[in-house]
């Protein structure tokens, strides 16, 4: 059984909320021991971290691999490579492919592809309703047996509350987790940006922030009724937060998350109709962004995800209204998160609580922690290493990142999955 020892590492433990220098021993794909004193001497291989950070690998809920259906934009292989380079050790993939993942057969295909070609772990999610059409629930039982991590229709809102109630009740019986992107589609239909002074000046169709709260309040009322396990993903507005806090205080099994873009960018970044900044829900006002960051700090928001959504050049080189939504983010998640660290908004244990520990717990995984016996899914990174992002250096097939040309800090040096190195940055 080979063993590796990281010495002189800055250990970021989200469970203990600690950030201290020490050593970590990996044996048999698991974390065998961790300490701050003199490291053990019997390791096969010693890696001197020279003061860099060692943290549990990121568990990213909501990655779109575009496979099946849109392999010109991304594939499970390229998404996996991007994830490894970004310190993401578990990709939880979205079912909004073409065709969507709404049958156990489709899920088994995606799962098998993940095992064959992805260097990092891959957990597929399944659609909540057939064809993500909001009319009939999917075979939730079969899909769970096939390994579905959670059930979501992604950006399609199930508008029929009777259908949603039944799906929730059925899922409740099986203990399945449901993930929704809350939104009131009557208000958000056709919108490209968030409403306000900027949207009006640019003449773009806009959705009022209140549409998110309306959708969330509806979902939470149904959760209260059905008692399903529920995760509200893609929360982006301050107006939605009190409802979340109330639901949690009332003891509902509710968690919530935001994408890294809504934590680090705002509506003005769209500037002169830059379509790489078109995401769904749209980038919000700066007040909303600050409220999201604060909510991650105080725990109202549990999870930060990349919302990795590859789009090719043809889908983006269009007038803003006509352009596709979404941004690639597997490789920029960590450096973007470091913005929040360097700004003093969140410390590293808080960030990895939201990027690793909480998502792992929500999905019932034993990853996301530096505890003894946990899987050795680890990321070694330098939080201070500066660089200017060139989008053509990304491993994703699609290069649609809003951070192109921006100054960033934070480089992943090494990524391990079950103790195996799946990514190592060249010394250069």
């Amino acid at each position: 059984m080979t063993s590796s020892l990281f010495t002189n590492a800055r250990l970021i433990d989200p469970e203990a909320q600690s950030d201290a220098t020490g050593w970590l021993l990996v044996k048999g794909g698991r974390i065998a021991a961790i300490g701050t004193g003199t490291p053990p001497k019997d390791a096969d291989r010693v890696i001197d971290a020279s003061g860099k950070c060692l943290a549990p690998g990121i568990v990213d809920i909501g990655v779109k691999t575009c496979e099946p259906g849109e392999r010109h934009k991304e594939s499970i292989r390229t998404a996996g490579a991007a994830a490894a380079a970004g310190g993401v050790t578990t990709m939880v993939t979205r079912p909004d492919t073409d065709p969507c993942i709404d049958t156990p057969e489709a899920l088994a295909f995606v799962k098998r592809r993940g095992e064959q070609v992805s260097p990092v772990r891959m957990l597929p999610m399944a659609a909540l309703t057939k064809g993500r059409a909001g009319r009939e629930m999917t075979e939730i039982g079969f899909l769970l047996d096939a390994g579905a991590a959670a059930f979501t229709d992604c950006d399609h809102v199930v508008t029929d509350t009777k259908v949603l109630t039944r799906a929730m009740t059925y899922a409740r019986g099986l203990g399945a987790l449901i993930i929704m992107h809350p939104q009131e589609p009557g208000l958000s239909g056709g919108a490209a940006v968030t409403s306000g002074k900027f949207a009006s000046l640019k003449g773009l169709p806009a959705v009022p922030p209140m549409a998110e709260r309306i959708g969330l309040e509806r979902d939470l009322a149904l959760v209260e009724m059905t008692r399903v396990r529920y995760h509200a993903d893609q929360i982006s507005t301050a107006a939605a937060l009190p409802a979340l806090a109330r639901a949690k205080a009332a003891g509902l099994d509710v968690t919530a998350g935001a994408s890294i873009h809504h934590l680090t960018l705002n509506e003005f970044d769209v500037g002169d109709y830059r379509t790489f900044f078109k995401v769904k829900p749209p980038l919000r006002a700066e007040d909303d962004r600050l409220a999201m960051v604060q909510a991650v700090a105080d725990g109202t928001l549990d999870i930060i995800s990349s919302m990795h959504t590859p789009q090719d050049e043809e889908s983006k080189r269009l007038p803003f209204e006509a352009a596709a939504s979404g941004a690639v983010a597997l490789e920029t998640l960590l450096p973007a998160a470091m913005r929040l660290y360097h700004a003093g908004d969140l410390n590293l244990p808080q960030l990895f609580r939201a990027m690793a520990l909480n998502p792992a717990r929500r999905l019932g995984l034993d990853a996301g922690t530096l505890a003894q016996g946990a899987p050795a899914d680890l990321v070694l990174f330098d939080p201070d290493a500066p660089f200017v992002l060139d989008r053509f250096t990304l491993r994703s097939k699609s290069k649609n990142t809003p951070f192109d040309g921006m100054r960033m800090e934070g480089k992943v040096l090494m990524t391990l999955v079950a103790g195996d190195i799946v990514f190592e940055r060249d010394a250069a």
Partner: protein
Amino acid sequence: MSFAKRHLLGIEPLHPTEITTVLDLADRYAEMGRGTAKHGDALAGLTQINMFFENSTRTQASFELAGKRLGADVMNMSMQTSSVKKGETLIDTALTLNAMHPDLLVVRHPHSGAVNLLAEKVTCAVLNAGDGRHEHPTQALLDALTIRRAKGRLHRLNIAICGDIAHSRVARSNILLLGKMENRVKLVGPSTLIPAGAADWGVEVYDDMRAGLAGADVVMMLRLQKERMDGGFIPSEREYYHRFGLDAEKLSCAKDDAIVMHPGPMNRGVEIDGTIADDINRSVIQEQVEMGVAVRMAAMDLLARNLRATRQEGGGVYV
């Protein structure tokens, strides 16, 4: 005289002195248009292509006439019936046309920002003839010229812009231009047609037309853009006319010498009473059309000068 822009994409990037430059030159072209020798040679040898992705009669005719009066070779392309229908993207269309070496590209497009996108991809000068709900700069310039000629100045005026602000690119360009020239701008309309955040634009917002028109030097009416509305913004045209249609009674709240403007085409009996529109003592609507040609001549002349200057500096094949 200064006008240091490669394109005319909107009022937003323009400096007040650049606006004045366009208007001063347009004044001269307006005089030329009234004379017997209507022809100049400022654009001689240049090719102007009008690309209209949206129906237009008035603006396209105005740009065509402006180009022809200055000696350009003008080509009109109605993009609604062309390769766009066959699935060609905006950028491919632009690159195709660019390969024919036009000098001036006049573009109207139903999507906000589409003209900016196109301008990034071509080597000629681009004029925005209206993009979605974003900007319509030549309309704002012709309105400004009309106001300046009628009122003798373009600053410290009390100007009411009335009606469908939300769907109007004309309103956005006018608000920007009149604000830059330091006027008091008031927006009047039902709250459903006032865009979100308008109160932060440095304008006053009224939903009572009589209060909004009080003391106005200029009353600028907008067309109710029924084709851009996706659902009921107003309960009915008759209620709209009752509350926001410009008639003699509401106009009496403005100054006695207030002028009435409308970018056309008008919905008579919806946003404006026909007798007001035709009242030669108050309405400057026909003058607006006349100034439209003059302003477009001036804008294309200035852009062509910059184009020639850059090409001479750069040497290359064009010299």
